[in-house]
């Protein structure tokens, strides 16, 4: 557990340094989802860093809300998919670390482009159904933003998965309650997500997305809930900007990079062995 916390702090350092370096990117959601990404890649999922597109026999992860690419890139690098030094190329010309994730430049770990919202759940369901056809009993994970649930395609997919008994899928929602123009309650009126997904036929769970002691058991419970005829979804309660006090509790840091001074404050709050910085 301490090791996971250390890794999470390191990933958070990477995130703020990456967005600071190019004065662009999305730190808020990235920081909020860091504990989830670290849990998946350092505890929950079975995968090989010897990347293949098919990922046969491996658990797959899809990021639907592609704008939180910094947390994914850092996690992939820290997990060994590519050299952490490459994080310094984020959002720069000729980089594999595009602003939003893509297969186009061949970055290991990424299996679909995302960024235009609402598409990842469908892709993950398709990948899960292909696994079933291949008699591959590994799992498919996908993360969506809560604001992203305003996209209609999500609900097409939400209707499809239970109808087709796609029970090798664990969908997750980053329920931070924030989107660009304000809170999800104000902007989109998301309402009772548990009731909505239950009505669509999902096995619904809720978990604290910023507490390993609660998150890891929830993810294990979700795994145990697969294979029972229903797709699984976890509503992860997270705080945008988690770990950097001045970024927390507001939508303001959705897509804004810290300046030099703010970066120093953030790094002080995320103090780990700085020798491991990229």
């Amino acid at each position, binding site marked *: 557990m301490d090791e996971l916390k250390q890794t999470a702090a390191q990933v958070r350092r990477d995130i703020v340094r990456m967005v600071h370096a190019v004065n662009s990117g999305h730190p808020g959601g990235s920081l909020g989802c860091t504990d989830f990404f670290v849990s998946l890649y350092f505890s929950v999922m079975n995968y090989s860093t010897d990347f293949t*597109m*098919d*990922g*046969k026999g491996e658990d*797959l992860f*899809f990021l639907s809300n592609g704008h939180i690419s910094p947390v994914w890139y850092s996690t992939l690098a820290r997990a060994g998919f590519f050299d952490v030094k490459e994080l310094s190329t984020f959002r720069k010309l000729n980089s594999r670390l595009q602003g939003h994730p*893509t*297969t*186009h430049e061949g970055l290991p770990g990424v*299996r*679909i*482009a*995302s*960024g*235009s919202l*609402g*598409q*990842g*759940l*469908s*892709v*993950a*369901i*398709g*990948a*899960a*159904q*292909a*696994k079933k*056809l*291949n008699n*591959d009993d590994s799992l498919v994970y996908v993360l969506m933003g809560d604001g992203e649930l305003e996209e*209609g*395609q999500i609900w*097409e*997919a939400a*209707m*499809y998965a239970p*109808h*087709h008994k796609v029970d090798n899928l664990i969908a997750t929602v980053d329920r931070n309650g924030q989107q660009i123009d304000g809170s999800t309650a104000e902007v989109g009126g998301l309402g009772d997500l548990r009731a909505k997904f239950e009505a669509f036929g999902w096995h619904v769970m809720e978990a604290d997305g910023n507490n390993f002691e609660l998150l890891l058991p929830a993810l294990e419970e979700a795994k145990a809930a697969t294979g029972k005829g229903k797709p699984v979804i976890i509503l992860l309660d997270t705080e945008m900007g988690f770990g950097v006090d001045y970024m927390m509790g507001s939508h303001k840091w959705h897509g804004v990079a810290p300046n030099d001074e703010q970066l120093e404050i953030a790094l002080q709050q995320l103090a780990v062995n700085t020798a491991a910085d990229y």
Partner: protein
Amino acid sequence: MKEYTYTEKKDTRSGFGDGLLEVGRKNPNVVGLCADLIGSLKMGAFQKEFPERFFQVGIAEANMMGLAAGMTIGGKIPYTGTFANFSTGRVYDQIRQSIAYSGKNVKICASHAGLTLGEDGATHQILEDIGMMKMLPGMTVINPCDYNQTKAATIAIAEYEGPVYLRFGRPVVPIFTPADQKFEIGKAVMLNEGTDVSIFATGHLVWKAILAGKMLADKGISAEIINIHTIKPLDAEAVLASVAKTRCVVTAEEHNRLGGLGDSIAQVLAANTPAPQEYVAVNDTFGESGTPEELMEKYGLTENDIVAAAERVISRK
């Protein structure tokens, strides 16, 4: 003028349905997805023989494109089926991001393209789909001309790794290409060699180009007729070789004159060997309800229109 005859008329969508069944038997990775139009797309035989490899998606085309993209990740070769309108415009961003930009091996199979969908009217008669699809980097765009060619194309695209837009239609049309043809993506098919004008046609307009060729021959005009079944990648070599002989061009397509085959040919001519060109295409307008024949006549897509265009373009040489 070379003689073309036919003994049977069939819809190109049946060529797709029969081709899908055949390629499904050959290749276990082929899967079918359909958005509540199994009968219209003629996917019933595939569904019946391979129920575990067939996915009824319902009226949710955006989801269908995403599912198809995801299935390729497990090595599947998904064939999606719905009307051309719902295969393109409705799901453009899904195709753009999850399929084209992601380089996924999805075969987007689109029926009821163009005016010949008929009585349903303009909401369903897409005339912009070739343009939309050919603008996507990496997308292959195929518009075969009859039942046999559609069947052959449906089978051939499974062997090609990458996204494909396969466009076909609703009405029965003469079957005049060989049943045993080898379908080569990106390779134009010479139907008649001629010297006075090059007629490049695609889809349902290919047969009309043949009819026009006969009428032109009766007037003493030698038309070269080439079937462009693949609009992207375009067989520029075949286009240029023909124009080198004839020095003028007619393009014929069941599509808006903006963005379709005509524009693809014009671009090749402009960059290599400028030559007069006349378009037989829909003149930047929406369609309407009517029988396919009435619509093709009203919107200027008949053999007579091709003949008139040929005469006009020859006079401009």
